[in-house]
């Protein structure tokens, strides 16, 4: 089944095989965006809720991502407590706590979530995290649950096929334009908390992709889940391409991607202008059209501190906002005929290219219409 004519699209829409989503995402909450760099808006505030999966898993482990994925982090037994609006991970248990995680445990108020990092970096003993609800919880095991909170597009529709019909985006905030938004389907991720280790580090786990199984069209990008330190190493991924050829490497010519010092959460660390800067994706070896799996990451020097996430994603479409206060719209049926497909389980998130220095919390609003048949 598929939408194969204008009449079929009309029929699908009027038969309620259609979904409209209104979305809003805000730029980084603590650090202004720099012109020329790319950012992952998924961890920003807004609707839908912020993505809290980035960096939530064990170091170097593969994690598939879908719209219903959940990952968890825990304190050690009886080693978590809350006083006021501060959660303390006295002795850490498993995985890593992240901003946006919902906290549960005996006596923990419903709806409690981490709003920002205190001294906690995800897994350090004694680390503190700021939460949204003031309360008092005595020592116990506290669990954090992360969800990707991607754009909702009507749920699974198989055996029907879902396509994007149109999209819009807007910002009226000063210096919010020009900018380009890119919708991506985040398919998998690897937490890299060992950022002071130099040389190749191997990823672990069986890499079965939930969508785009061959890796065709999939690309990788890297963002911090905890603000990075002062290092500026080059970065090289070792991967298997979409044809199943292993041993592929990020090309070193003209230059390997170079990390930007003290990159904030959500910034694509090697994006920007000048030598060694790319974006949003890590360049592929000549002739490759996608990534089926990633075997390793190699940092040429320590990044001093922080934590990274390597994300495998499928770009769906781009949408430029040319002017502050001017709504941008794309009709992907008539104007730019493409009707990109959205697979069941898609974890849809926005990447953004900042065309100008953009203030913290700059708000973007838009809508996304899909239909299936």
């Amino acid at each position: 089944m598929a939408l194969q004519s204008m009449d079929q699209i009309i029929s699908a829409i009027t038969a309620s095989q259609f979904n409209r989503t209104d979305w809003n995402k805000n730029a980084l909450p603590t650090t202004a965006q720099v012109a020329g760099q790319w950012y992952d808006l998924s961890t920003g505030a807004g609707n839908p809720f912020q993505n809290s999966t980035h960096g939530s898993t064990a170091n170097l482990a593969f994690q598939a991502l879908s719209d219903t994925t959940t990952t968890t982090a825990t304190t050690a037994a009886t080693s978590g407590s809350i006083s006021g609006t501060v959660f303390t991970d006295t002795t850490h248990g498993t995985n890593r706590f992240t901003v946006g995680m919902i906290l549960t445990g005996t006596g923990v108020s419903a709806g409690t979530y981490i709003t920002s990092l205190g001294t906690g970096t995800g897994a350090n003993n004694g680390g503190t995290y700021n939460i949204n609800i003031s309360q008092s919880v005595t020592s116990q095991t506290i669990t954090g649950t992360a969800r990707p909170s991607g754009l909702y597009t009507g749920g699974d529709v198989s055996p029907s096929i879902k396509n994007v019909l149109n999209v819009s985006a807007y910002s009226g905030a000063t210096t919010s334009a020009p900018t380009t938004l890119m919708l991506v389907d985040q398919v998998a991720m690897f937490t890299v908390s060992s950022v002071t280790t130099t040389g190749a580090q191997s990823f672990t786990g069986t890499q079965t992709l939930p969508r785009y199984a061959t890796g065709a069209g999939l690309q990788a990008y890297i963002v911090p889940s905890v603000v990075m330190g002062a290092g500026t190493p080059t970065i090289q991924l070792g991967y298997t391409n979409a044809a199943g050829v292993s041993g592929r490497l990020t090309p070193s010519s003209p230059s390997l991607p170079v990390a930007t010092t003290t990159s904030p959460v959500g910034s694509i660390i090697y994006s920007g202008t000048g030598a060694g800067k790319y974006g949003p994706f890590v360049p592929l070896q000549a002739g490759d059209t996608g990534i089926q799996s990633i075997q390793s990451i190699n940092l040429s020097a320590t990044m001093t501190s922080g934590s990274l996430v390597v994300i495998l994603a499928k770009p769906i479409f781009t949408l430029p906002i040319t002017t502050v206060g001017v709504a941008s719209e794309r009709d992907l049926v008539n104007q730019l005929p493409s009707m990109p497909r959205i697979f069941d389980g898609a974890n849809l998130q926005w990447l953004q290219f900042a065309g100008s220095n953009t203030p913290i919390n700059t708000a973007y609003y838009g809508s996304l219409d899909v239909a299936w048949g």
Partner: protein
Amino acid sequence: MAIRSYKDLVDAEENGQTFFGSFRKNLNAATGANSWFDVTLSPGNPLPFYYASTPLIGAPMGQAANGGMPHNPPVENLGYKTYLKKLSITPLNTAAIVTGPMILMDYLFYYPFIDTSTTDEQFLDNTASLTRYTSGQGVSVMAVQMAGLLGSGNPTFQFTYTNQNGELKTSPRQTCGTAIFVGNLATANSGQASGSASNYPFLILCPEDTGIRSVQSVTFNSPDIGLLAFVLVKPIEQIALREIGSGGERTPVIDFFDLPVIADNAYLSILLNSANANVNAMPYIGTIETVWG
């Protein structure tokens, strides 16, 4: 029956299954730039609706009882659905004009006179319930300023609600902006909050929630003097004014390839964002055409 093709659309037109209406609004409000503003409270034709009824008691909204932008009478009892055929908006004044999106929405339900000056939990009466989009799927909630609030110190609040699956949830913390005027959305105006920013038109729901069925209570963490109405809405279509001095047109099936359904008895009104300051005394006129089949 339903419209399944271009031919069905043409047939519906030839059979007279169409409606043409016009409207005029005068946005008599001072706002800051980049504010979301609910024109429901603005004078003109249709008459303004002030969300003024018994405090904290939820009330449904509908065309028959409350008005709103014109559209055709109910047709679902005939086996038809109504669709938005065309929407056009033309501003009249180039001095204080809007550029930005305007969202046509079905206003479903409201809770009036939520007091922003108290930190007590305010419980809302849900004796009445949604009469359209009854599960709440795709329904959003916005906080419309009815009076007073200036947003000093960026007041914050949370609310409990029932999501689209009937589950009771406690919302994430919402942050009000500053310099809020009547008709502004309290969490979505020019005075962006520090920390967790505002300027999303709709209140933020919990992860995985895709709609809201009802609101049970509201609690302000930090107060300010003022009154809010919580309004449940279903966005239908947007239209953009891109340039000072020019109007906007939308023929959904031709230039944006969708065909939004307008439910019987829908209360239609517009939420807009202005990139310009002071949306005061900006009149606009518009037309709306619907088709059913």
